[in-house]
C-alpha cells in the first residue's frame, strides 16, 4: 500500500515537473556552419543561435503594426534604437560625432564573467583586427574603421567616435555580428598564431549574455538550447528549445500537421492554405521588404542596353506571379526601395505589365521581335521552389516578345561564385536588407563600388547621392536625396522586381509571442508555450 502511494506521489511530482518544463521543438532546414557570431553569414540556424545566445549594445524597438488584412502583429522599428546591453545611448552634446553608451550593470555572461566596458572594447578589437563581417557593415561610408574609435570612459560607459555622427552606423551595430563575446573564452582559447581564437569560436559556442545557452548539439541532427536562469530581464518562459534539422520542406509540413514539432519556417508557400485549415496550427504571414529580383547584368549584352532592360520590366506579369507563385503570400513590388522601408517612393517606378509597350521598346533597342539577340541564359539556384516557378513565368513572358531564354539551375556554390564575380548575365535571386535603411539598401545594391552590386550597375550621380547622404543626420535632405536616387535608378532599371514575398511562420496555436524581426531570425525570449 505504502509503495503504491509512493509511486503515486512520484508520479504527481513528475507530472508537475513536466508541466513546469516548457520545451519548444522547431523544425529547421539546415545545420550549423560556424558558432562564431562575428563570422556567421550562411546558415539560418547558426544565425538564430547567435541571435539568442549573444547580444548587442543596442537593438531596434519592438512595435505593433497592422497587416493589410487587419491583424495586429509585433515587429521592430529600426528608426527607434533602444538599449540592450547598453541601458541607454545618446549623442554627446559637446561632440556630434560621438555616441555615449551607458552599460547595464550587474550583467553576467553564462560563464559568470561580469559584462563591462572592458568586455565591449575587447570584443570590438577582435571584430576589427580579425576583419569580421561587422567591419564592413559599420565601415560603411568610412564611419568606423578602427577599434580604437570605441573608448572606455569608465567601467560602465563606452564612447564611440565616428567620422561623422549618424544613425546608419548605429543601425548596423544592432546586427548580431557585433555581439559581445565573453573575454574569458577569448583569453582561454587564444594562441600565438590565432590571437582572436577564431578557430575555437568557429567550432564551439562561446558563452554569451543572452537568454539562451547551448545544452547539447548532435551534428546534422539537432541543436538544443536551454534557458539562462540568471538572464537580467528574467528567466525565459520557454525552458528548452530543440532545433531539429529537417531538410525536406515536405516533411516539415508533415511534422507540423501531426504536432511532432511546434514551429517551422521555410515552409513551401503552396502548403500554407492547407496548413491554415488545420485547427491546431497558426500561420503567420508578415509583409517584408524582401525582393525576388530578375537581375540583368548591366555590362553584358543585351542588357547593357537600357531599352532592353525597360522592355523586360514591362513584359513581366507581376500580378500573376503574386497570385500563382505566391498564392497571395506576397505583394507586387513598388520599386527599388520596397514599401516598408523609410522613404520608399512608389511613384518613381512606372513599370506595370504592358506587353505591347515591351515589344515597342525591344524594337527601339534594335531587336524587333527579338531578332539579333544574343543567346540568353536565365540562371537560378537549385532548391528555391518559388524562384524556379518565377523563372518559368519569366521565360514564357519574354518568349512573347521574341526573346528566347533558356533556364539553367545551378548548385548554390557555383551560382554564388559566378554571381560574386559579376559573371551572370541574367539571373533570379532574392535580397532583404537586414538594416531597414534606404542608404544601406542602395549602397549594397546600386553603388558602383559595392561587392554585392551583382548586376554591375554604375551611375555616378547615384553614387554621389549615396556617398553624400549615407551618413547624414539631416533626415529631410536624406529623404529627398533618396527619392531623387529612386527616380534615377528606376529610369536605369538595373534590376526588375518580380515580387515582394511575405515571411511565413507556422506555429502550433499553443505557441505565442512571436515577433517578426527584420533579420527574420526567431527570438525565443519573447515567446511562450501554453500547456
Amino acid at each position, binding site marked *: 500500500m505504502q509503495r503504491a502511494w509512493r509511486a503515486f506521489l512520484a508520479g504527481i511530482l513528475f507530472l508537475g515537473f513536466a508541466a513546469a518544463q516548457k520545451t519548444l521543438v522547431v523544425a529547421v532546414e539546415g545545420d550549423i556552419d560556424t558558432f562564431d557570431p562575428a563570422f556567421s553569414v550562411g546558415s539560418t540556424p547558426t544565425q538564430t543561435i547567435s541571435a539568442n545566445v549573444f547580444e548587442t549594445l543596442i537593438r531596434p524597438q519592438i512595435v505593433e503594426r497592422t497587416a493589410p488584412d487587419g491583424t495586429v502583429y509585433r515587429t521592430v522599428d529600426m528608426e527607434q534604437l533602444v538599449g540592450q546591453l547598453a541601458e541607454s545611448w545618446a549623442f554627446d552634446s559637446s561632440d556630434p560625432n560621438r555616441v555615449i553608451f551607458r552599460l547595464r550593470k550587474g550583467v553576467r555572461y553564462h560563464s559568470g564573467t561580469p559584462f563591462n566596458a572592458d568586455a565591449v572594447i575587447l570584443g570590438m578589437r577582435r571584430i576589427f583586427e580579425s576583419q569580421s563581417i561587422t567591419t564592413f557593415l559599420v565601415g560603411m561610408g568610412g564611419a568606423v574603421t578602427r577599434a580604437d574609435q570605441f573608448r572606455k570612459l569608465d567601467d560602465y560607459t563606452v564612447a564611440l567616435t565616428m567620422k561623422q555622427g549618424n544613425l546608419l552606423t548605429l543601425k548596423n551595430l544592432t546586427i548580431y555580428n557585433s555581439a559581445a563575446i565573453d573575454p574569458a573564452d577569448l583569453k582561454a582559447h587564444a594562441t600565438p598564431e590565432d590571437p582572436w581564437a577564431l578557430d575555437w569560436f568557429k567550432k564551439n559556442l562561446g558563452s554569451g549574455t543572452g537568454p539562451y545557452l547551448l545544452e547539447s548539439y548532435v551534428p546534422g541532427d539537432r541543436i538544443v538550447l536551454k534557458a539562462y536562469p540568471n538572464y537580467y530581464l528574467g528567466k525565459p518562459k520557454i525552458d528548452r528549445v530543440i532545433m531539429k534539422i529537417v531538410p525536406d520542406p515536405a516533411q516539415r509540413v508533415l511534422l507540423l500537421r501531426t504536432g511532432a514539432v511546434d514551429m517551422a519556417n521555410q515552409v513551401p508557400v503552396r502548403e500554407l492554405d492547407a496548413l491554415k485549415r488545420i485547427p491546431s496550427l497558426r500561420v503567420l504571414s508578415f509583409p517584408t521588404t524582401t525582393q525576388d529580383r530578375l537581375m540583368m547584368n548591366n555590362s553584358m549584352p543585351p542588357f547593357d542596353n537600357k531599352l532592353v532592360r525597360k522592355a523586360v520590366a514591362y513584359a513581366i506579369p507581376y500580378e500573376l506571379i503574386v497570385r500563382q507563385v505566391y498564392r497571395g503570400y506576397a505583394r507586387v513590388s513598388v520599386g527599388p526601395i520596397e514599401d516598408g522601408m523609410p522613404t520608399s517612393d512608389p511613384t518613381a517606378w512606372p513599370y506595370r505589365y504592358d506587353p505591347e509597350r515591351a515589344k515597342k521598346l525591344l524594337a527601339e533597342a534594335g531587336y524587333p521581335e527579338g531578332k539579333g539577340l544574343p543567346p540568353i541564359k536565365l540562371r537560378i539556384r537549385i532548391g528555391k521552389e518559388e524562384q524556379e516557378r518565377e523563372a518559368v513565368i519569366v521565360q514564357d513572358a519574354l518568349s512573347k516578345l521574341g526573346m528566347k531564354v533558356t533556364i539553367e539551375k545551378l*548548385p548554390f556554390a557555383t551560382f554564388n561564385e559566378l554571381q560574386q564575380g559579376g559573371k551572370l548575365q541574367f539571373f533570379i535571386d532574392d535580397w532583404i536588407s537586414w538594416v531597414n535603411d534606404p542608404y544601406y539598401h542602395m549602397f549594397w545594391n546600386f553603388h558602383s563600388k559595392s561587392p554585392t552590386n551583382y548586376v554591375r550597375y554604375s551611375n555616378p550621380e547615384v553614387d554621389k547621392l549615396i556617398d553624400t547622404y549615407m551618413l547624414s543626420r539631416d533626415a529631410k535632405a536624406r529623404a529627398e536625396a533618396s527619392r531623387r536616387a529612386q527616380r534615377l535608378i528606376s529610369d536605369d532599371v538595373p534590376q526588375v522586381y518580380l515580387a515582394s514575398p511575405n515571411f511565413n511562420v507556422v506555429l502550433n496555436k499553443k505557441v505565442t509571442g512571436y515577433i517578426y524581426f527584420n533579420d527574420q531570425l526567431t527570438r525565443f525570449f519573447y515567446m511562450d508555450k501554453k500547456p
Partner: protein
Amino acid sequence: MRVLRYVLRRLALLVPVLLGTLFIAFFLTRVLPGNPIDRVAGPYISQEKREAMKREARLDLPFYQQFYLYLADLVTKGDMGTSYTTAQPVTRDLLQRFPATLELVLYGMGLAVVLAIPLGVLSALHKDSPVDHAGRVIAVVGVSVPVFWLGLVLLYVFFLKLQWAPPPIGRLPPTMSPPPHVTGLYTLDALLAGQWDVFKAALSALALPAVSLAVTAMAPLARMTRSAMVEALESEYVRAARALGLPQHVIIWDYAFRNAVIPILTIFAGVFGYALGGVVLVEFIFSWPGLGLYTLNAILSSDFPAIQGAILLVTTVYVFIYLLLDLAVAAIDPRVEV
C-alpha cells in the same frame, strides 16, 4: 597464412585505388565552378579579404600542389581538413555521420536478405507457378518504384493514417537523448547501456527507412537467388542427390543453395555498395543525419574537404566489402583459391 598474405595484398591495393579516386574527386571539384569561400565569407566583405581567405585555404595554389598538401596532412597527421559547411574537422564529421548511415543500411540489407532469399528459393522450387509469378511481380515493383516515392507512401500509410510508425524526424524523437556513444549504432549502444526505451525508439525510427531501402534492394537479390537456384536444381548433382533419395531440405540447402550462393553474394555486395551511395534520398525524407545528406550538402556548397573525406570513406568501405566477398567465396567454394 596464405589467406593473411592475400588479405594484406588486397589491402595494399587499396592505396592506388584510394589515390586514384581521390585524384578524380580533387580534379572534378577544382575544375567545376564554385568554391567554398563565398559561402563562409558572405556577401559583404571586400574583395581583398575574400582573396586573403582563399589564400589561407590554399585555394589559390595550383591543383597538384593542393593535392600534395592534402595528402601530406592526411598521411602525417590523419587530418582531412575542416569542413566549410559544419566548421568541424572532416574526420569527426564522418565518424559522427557514418554510423547513422551504416545502421540504416545494415537493417535495410538485413531485411532485404531475409525477404529476398526465401522468396527467390520458393520461386525457383515452384518455377512458373503462381508463387513464381507473384515473386516476379514483387521484384519488378521493387526495381521500378523510386525509393523516395516508396518512403513517402510508407509515411503516408504507416505514420499519417495508421499512426504505427514514428514521425520522420531522424534517429530518435527530439526530446530523447542519444545513448552513450560506443559504436554510434543507436540500437546497439542502447542495448549495451541497457536503455530499453531508447532501443525501442531507435528501432521504430529505423522501421520505415529500412523497409524503403530493403524493398528496392531485395528485387535484384530475389531474382538472382531464383535464377541461381533454378540452375542448381536442374544440375546433374541435384539429380544425383535426388536419385540417392536424400531428404528434400538437404538437397535444397546443402546442395543447390550452397552452389547458388556465390552469384547471390556477388550481387549482394553490389547492392550493399549501391545502398551506401543511394541512401541519400531516404535520409532526406526521414531527416536522417547520415553520410548521404552530409555529402549532398557538401557537394552543393563545394565543400572540398568534406567531399574528399566522404569519397575516401565510401571507397574504403566498398573495397572492404569486395574483399570480404572474395574471402567468403573462397571459404564457400573449395575450387577458389586465394
